[in-house]
C-alpha cells in the first residue's frame, strides 16, 4: 500500500508562444490504502493528472512519487500500478483469460502462478464461467469487470480508474460502484478514481479532490466538501441541485456571496419572498425554481408538503447554521 505524493505538479503542452498550461501546480498527499476520487467538469485536467500518475503523459514540472520512489522518469510498467480505462481497452482478439494474463505473461511469471492469480481474480469478480469468451461476446458490465480483473491480477501498489463507469447504464453503474467499494475494502490498495459524476465521487471517495481549470479547489472528505465547500465553484459543483449563490441576499455582507443549499431552505409564512417559476416533481421531493429579487433560486420541498403554484410567491427562511459566505472577488470561502 503505497502513498502517492503530488509535489507542485505542472502540465504544459506545446512550446514557445503556443504553450498551454493545463495543470497549475497540484500539491496533495494521498495516504497508503486510501480511496481518492478526482472530480471536476470536463476539461479541468483530472484525466491528465491521472495519466501523469500512470506514466502515459509526461510530467512537465514538479514531482509525483509513489511510495518513496519519484516516478517522473519511469515507464508505466515500472511504476507498479494498474489502470482501468474508460473504454476498458480489452484486447479484442484475446480471450478473457488471455486479457487478464497478458501483463503477467510479459513479466514472465510461471504459468501456474498466472493461472492461480487469474482464477482468484475471476472468482472475486464472478468471471470464472466467462474465461474462454472473447470481449465482444461480453456485455458492457462484464467487460468492465474483465478490465478490473486485469488490474487486480497485477497486484499493484496503486489502482488508477479513468471514468470506468461512464459507459454503463444507471443501474449497472450503481451496482458496480458498490462492487468497487467492496473490492477496495478487501484489497485495501491505494486507488485514484477520476470521474465527472459527483454522485460517484461522493459515494466512492474516502477523500476527494475537486478540480477546476487545472487547479485543485478542495481536497477533503465528502462531508467536508459538502458542508464546508472551499469555494463557490465547489459549492455549485457538488450537490444536486447546486447550492444557491446569492449576491444580494438579506443579511449578506458587502462584497460577499451568500450560499445556501436548496435543501436548507424551509417554507415559512415570513422570510425571503420567492416568486415561483417552475416546479419539478422528483418523487421524494419537489424542486421549486424561482426568483429572489433579481436572482435565481432553487428551493427543495418534501413531497408531503403542499406544492406551490407556479407564479405565486412563497416565503422561505434559510437555516442559519447552514449558510455559507464566499468572497465575491476570489470566490473563496470566508470563515463564518
Amino acid at each position, binding site marked *: 500500500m503505497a502513498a502517492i505524493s503530488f509535489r507542485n505538479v505542472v502540465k504544459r503542452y506545446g512550446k514557445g508562444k503556443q504553450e498551454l498550461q493545463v495543470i497549475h501546480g497540484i500539491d496533495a498527499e494521498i495516504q497508503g490504502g486510501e480511496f481518492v476520487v478526482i472530480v471536476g467538469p470536463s476539461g479541468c485536467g483530472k484525466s491528465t493528472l491521472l495519466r501523469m500518475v*500512470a*506514466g*502515459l503523459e509526461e510530467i512537465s514540472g514538479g514531482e509525483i512519487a509513489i511510495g518513496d520512489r519519484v516516478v517522473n522518469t519511469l*515507464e*508505466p*510498467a515500472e511504476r507498479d*500500478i*494498474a*489502470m482501468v*480505462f*474508460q*473504454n*476498458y*481497452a*480489452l*484486447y*479484442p*482478439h484475446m480471450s478473457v483469460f488471455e486479457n487478464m494474463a*497478458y*501483463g503477467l505473461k*510479459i*513479466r514472465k511469471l510461471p504459468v501456474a502462478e498466472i493461472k492461480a492469480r487469474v482464477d482468484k481474480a475471476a472468482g472475486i469478480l464472478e468471471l470464472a464461467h466467462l474465461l474462454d469468451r472473447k470481449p*465482444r461476446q461480453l456485455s458492457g458490465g462484464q467487460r468492465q469487470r474483465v478490465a478490473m480483473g*486485469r488490474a487486480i491480477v497485477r497486484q499493484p501498489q496503486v489502482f488508477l480508474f479513468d471514468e470506468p463507469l461512464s459507459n454503463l447504464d444507471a443501474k449497472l453503474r450503481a451496482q458496480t460502484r458498490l462492487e468497487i467499494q467492496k473490492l477496495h475494502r478487501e484489497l485495501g490498495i491505494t486507488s485514484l478514481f477520476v470521474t465527472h459524476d459527483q454522485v460517484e465521487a461522493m459515494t466512492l471517495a474516502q477523500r476527494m479532490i475537486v478540480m477546476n481549470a487545472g487547479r485543485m479547489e478542495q481536497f477533503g472528505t465528502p462531508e467536508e466538501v459538502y458542508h464546508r465547500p472551499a469555494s463557490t465553484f465547489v459549492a455549485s459543483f457538488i450537490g444536486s441541485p447546486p447550492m444557491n449563490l446569492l449576491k444580494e441576499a438579506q443579511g449578506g455582507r458587502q462584497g460577499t456571496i451568500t450560499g445556501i443549499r436548496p435543501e436548507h431552505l424551509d417554507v415559512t409564512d415570513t422570510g425571503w419572498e420567492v416568486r415561483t417559476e417552475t416546479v419539478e416533481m422528483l418523487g421524494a421531493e419537489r424542486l421549486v425554481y424561482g426568483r429572489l429579487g433579481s436572482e435565481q433560486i432553487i428551493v427543495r420541498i418534501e413531497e408531503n408538503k403542499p406544492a406551490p403554484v407556479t407564479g405565486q410567491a412563497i416565503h422561505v427562511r434559510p437555516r442559519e447554521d447552514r449558510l455559507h459566505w464566499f468572497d465575491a472577488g476570489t470566490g473563496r470561502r470566508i470563515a463564518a
Partner: protein
Amino acid sequence: MIERNRFLTILTHVVLVLGVLVVAFPVYITFVASTHTMEDVVRVPMPLTPGSHFLENYRIALLGERVGTGTHAAVARMMSVSFIMAIAIALGKIAISLLSAFAIVYFRFPFRIFFFWAIFVTLMLPVEVRIGPTYKVVADLHMLNSYAGLAVPLIASATATFLFRQFFLTVPDELVEAARMDGAGPMRFFFDVLLPLSATSMAALFVIQFIYGWNQYLWPLLITTEENMYPIVLGIKQMISSGGDAQTEWNIVMATAMLAMIPPALVVIGMQKWFVRGLVDSEK
C-alpha cells in the same frame, strides 16, 4: 434502396445477366478453343461447342511437348515460377508495409512527415516509369533470371502501407496504453496485438497482391531470358508465333491461358471465407 416493382426486378436481372455474359463468354471461347485440334480452331467460323481433345491438349501444355514455334517451356514449370513470384510479392508487400505503417503511425522520429510523403510520392512512380533504372540495379546485382529479381523490385508498396496506416489509426489509443501498462514493448505490441487485429486486412491485401504478382508481364519480360524462369503470363505471349495464325498452336495457347487462370481464382475463392469472417466478426 429497396423497391418491389416487377419492371425493375426484370431490368436488374437483365443487366446482371448481360454483365455475366460479357465477362463469361470470352472465358468460354477460350475453353472451347482449348479442346479442339489446331486445325479446328483456326477454321472460320470457329466451333462453339467443346471438342474431344481436352486431355491431350492440356497434357501437351503442362509438359511443354509442343512442336510449333515460340517457347517450349512446360506450363507446369511456368506456373510454379509464377506462383513463387506471386507469393513472394504478396507476402513481401504485406511484411514491409506493415512495418513501415507501424513506424509511421506509432513512432515520433525526425522527418517522420518527410518519410510519410516520400512513400506517398512513390505512388506516382509505378514500375513502368522507373523500369530503366530498376533494370540497371537488378542487372548490376546479378539478379537477372532469378526469383529475387522477379519479386524484390515489386515488393515496395505505398498502397498497402496506406491501407495499414489507415487501419492502425482506427486502433484505439487506449489499447496502446493498456499494452504499455502491461509492460509490452513496441515489438511485443506489434506482434501480440497489432498483427492479430490486422488479420483480415492482411487477407484482403494478400488476395489483391497475389493477383497483382501473378499478372506481372512487363517486368518479367525484361529480366528473364531463360525459358525456365518464365512466369506463365509471359509464357503465353512467347508461345504465340510471330509467323501469324497458321503457325501458332492456338489450342495449346488457350489451354495454357485456362490453366493460368486457375490459381488466382482459387486464391479468391479460398480467401473469400476470410473476408466474410472478417466482416461478420467485426472486432471493434
